[in-house]
C-alpha cells in the first residue's frame, strides 16, 4: 500500500496526494461519485468546462468509437459560471481534495467576467485555462495555436486571477514548445499538455461525416504515444511543472509520462471505461517505486531525460 508521502506531489500551487488528476469533461456532478471511496487514488479533479454563459453544446452525434479510443464533439455543454457556483461548487468543494475549475478561454470580456465571478467566491484553489477554443475576437483560430495568441490569453487570465493558474495546451499547435514558453513567461503556474487531437469520422451508411461539425477530438489509448512525444518536447522547453494528458490508461503510461518530465498525469477517456483507474495507477506506481528503490513519485519526474 502506498504511503501518503511517497505519492505526494506539490504542483503548480496545489498539494496533491497523488499524481493522478481527473481531466476536464469526465466526472459528472453526481453526488455519490464525489465520495472519498469513489475517488480513491485521485489527487485532484478538473471540473467540466465552465464558460461565462451556458452552452447547449453540439447537436447530432457527439461520440464515436475508434480503434483504442473515441472521438467526441460535445461542444462544451455547461450551464454557465453562475450556475456552476450555485449548483455544483458545493459538491466539488465537499470532496475535500484540490480541484481546478476548467475555464473556457472565450473572448477577453467573457473570460474577465468569468474570472471575476470565480474570484468573488472563496476556496477555489485553481483555474485550468482551456486555450483550445477559438479566439472569436481575433482570427478565429484556437487561442493556443500560436505563441502570440496563447500569451495574450494567459496575460488576460493572469491579470484577473490571483490563485493558481494552469494552462491546458492544444496539441493542434505547430509550435508547442513556443506556446509553452509563452505561457510560462506570462506567469502560468503549470502547463497541462495537452488536449484531444482533431480527427473525424465518416458515417459510411449515411455517406456523410459522422459529426455535424465534421471534426471532433480524439482521445484514449490511441493518442498516448503522440501525447508522450508532446510532453517530452514541452518539458524540454519550460521550467514550470507540466501535467501529462492524453491516452493515459495504465500505471505504465503514467510512469512513462513522469519519466518524460511530467509532474503528474490527467486521465480522461480511460476513466470512462474503468472507474478504478486512479487507484490502479497509484498502486502500480507505488510498486514500481519500491522495485526501483526511489523514495517518492516526484523522484520520477524527468528521470528518463538524463543521459
Amino acid at each position, binding site marked *: 500500500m502506498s504511503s501518503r508521502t511517497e505519492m505526494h506531489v506539490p504542483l503548480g500551487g496545489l498539494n496533491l496526494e497523488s499524481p493522478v488528476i481527473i481531466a476536464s*469533461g*469526465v*466526472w*459528472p*456532478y*453526481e*453526488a*455519490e*461519485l464525489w465520495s472519498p471511496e*469513489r475517488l480513491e487514488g485521485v489527487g485532484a479533479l478538473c471540473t*467540466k468546462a465552465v464558460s461565462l454563459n451556458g452552452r*447547449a*453544446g453540439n*447537436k*447530432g*452525434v*457527439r*461520440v*464515436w*468509437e*475508434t*480503434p*483504442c*479510443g*473515441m472521438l*467526441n464533439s*460535445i461542444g462544451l*455543454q455547461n450551464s454557465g459560471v453562475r450556475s456552476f457556483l450555485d449548483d455544483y461548487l458545493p459538491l466539488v468543494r465537499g470532496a475535500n481534495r484540490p480541484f481546478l475549475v476548467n475555464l473556457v478561454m472565450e473572448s477577453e470580456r467573457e473570460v474577465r467576467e468569468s474570472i471575476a465571478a470565480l474570484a468573488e467566491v472563496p476556496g477555489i484553489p485553481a483555474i485550468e485555462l482551456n486555450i483550445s477554443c477559438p479566439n472569436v475576437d481575433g482570427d478565429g483560430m484556437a487561442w493556443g495555436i500560436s505563441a502570440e495568441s496563447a500569451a495574450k490569453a494567459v496575460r488576460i487570465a493572469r491579470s484577473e486571477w490571483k490563485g493558481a493558474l494552469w494552462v491546458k495546451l492544444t496539441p493542434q499547435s505547430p509550435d508547442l514548445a513556443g506556446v509553452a514558453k509563452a505561457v510560462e513567461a506570462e506567469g502560468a503556474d503549470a502547463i497541462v499538455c495537452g488536449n484531444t487531437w482533431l480527427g473525424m469520422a465518416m458515417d459510411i451508411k449515411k455517406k456523410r461525416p459522422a459529426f455535424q461539425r465534421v471534426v471532433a477530438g480524439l482521445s*484514449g*489509448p490511441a493518442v498516448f504515444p503522440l501525447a508522450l512525444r508532446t510532453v517530452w518536447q514541452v518539458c524540454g522547453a519550460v521550467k514550470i511543472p507540466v501535467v501529462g494528458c492524453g491516452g493515459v*490508461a495504465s500505471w505504465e503510461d503514467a510512469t512513462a509520462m513522469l519519466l518524460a518530465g511530467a509532474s503528474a498525469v490527467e486521465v480522461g*477517456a*480511460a*476513466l*470512462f*471505461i*474503468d*472507474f*478504478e483507474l486512479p487507484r490502479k495507477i497509484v498502486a502500480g506506481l507505488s510498486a514500481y517505486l519500491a522495485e526501483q528503490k526511489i523514495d517518492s513519485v516526484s523522484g520520477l519526474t524527468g528521470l528518463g531525460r538524463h543521459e
Partner: protein
Amino acid sequence: MSCGGSAPRDYEAKVAGSRALGDGSGLIAVECEAIASAAEPGQFVMVRPGSCGDPFLGRPLAVAAASGGIFKMLYRVVGRGTELLASKRQGDSLVVRGPIGRGFFSSRGDTPLPKKVLLAGGSVGAAPLLFAARRLGMAKVAGVSMGVAGRGWEGFAEWLKESFPGVALFSDDGSVGTKGTALDGLPSELPADTEVWACGPQGMLRALAAKYPSDGARVRVALESRMACGMGGCLGCVIPTARGNRRVCVDGPVFTAEEVLWNEFAD
C-alpha cells in the same frame, strides 16, 4: 441531475450461459449478484466484451431479466463488440457496469402505476419489456406488440412468441407475423388508465409519440443513444427535451414521449 438508483459500479463477471436465437441474435446470462438484485426494467448495463481496450467503449444493453444472482441481456450482432459478446460461453469473463439509469418504475416519480400497460417493442427493444412484463405481472399487461425487420429474424420471432404468449407479431416485409410495425398492434385511441411502455429504434418511438399526440404523458419510452461512459460524465448521449438537454444514461433511459423534442432529435 441525479440518477434513479445509486451510481453504477464496474464488476468483473462470469457468463452463466448463452443461447443463440438465430441469425446473430441471442440471450446472454451473466452472474452478478449486485446488478441482478438491484436492476429494474428499463435499466441497462455497459458491457465490455473485449480486452486491452479493444473495442474501447462498453456496449449499452438493456437488462432483459434478473433473478437469483443472474441477469440476462438480449443482443443482435451489429459490429465487432456484439460479435465478441456473441462468442462468449459459460465461464468466460466480462466487465459489466451497472445497473444504469432510471427505469420504467423509478422514472415515474410519484405517478402511480396505471391499471394496464401495453408493451410495444422493436427488435432487441423487446428486452426491457420482457423484464417489465415479469415485474408487472401478466395480469397488468393489456397487450404485447412486437416488430422485427423480417427475413433473418425467424429465430428471434420464435423466442418472442415463447416469451410473450399471445404476442402480436409484425415484420416490415411480412415474412414473420403480419406485415406492418409494432404500432399496428396498438389501439388507435389509448384506453383510460392505460399506458404504453415501449423500446425500439428511434423511428418507431417517434412514430409512437405521433400516434398518441395528446397522450404523450402516458407513453413511456426507453431510449437508446451512442454513449461513452454510462455514468453521466461524457454528455455524449444527451437528447433534446422540454427541460433542455437530458442524458439518456442517467436522466433516462426512460422518458415520457411528451418530454422528448422528437423533431430536434437527430437520427
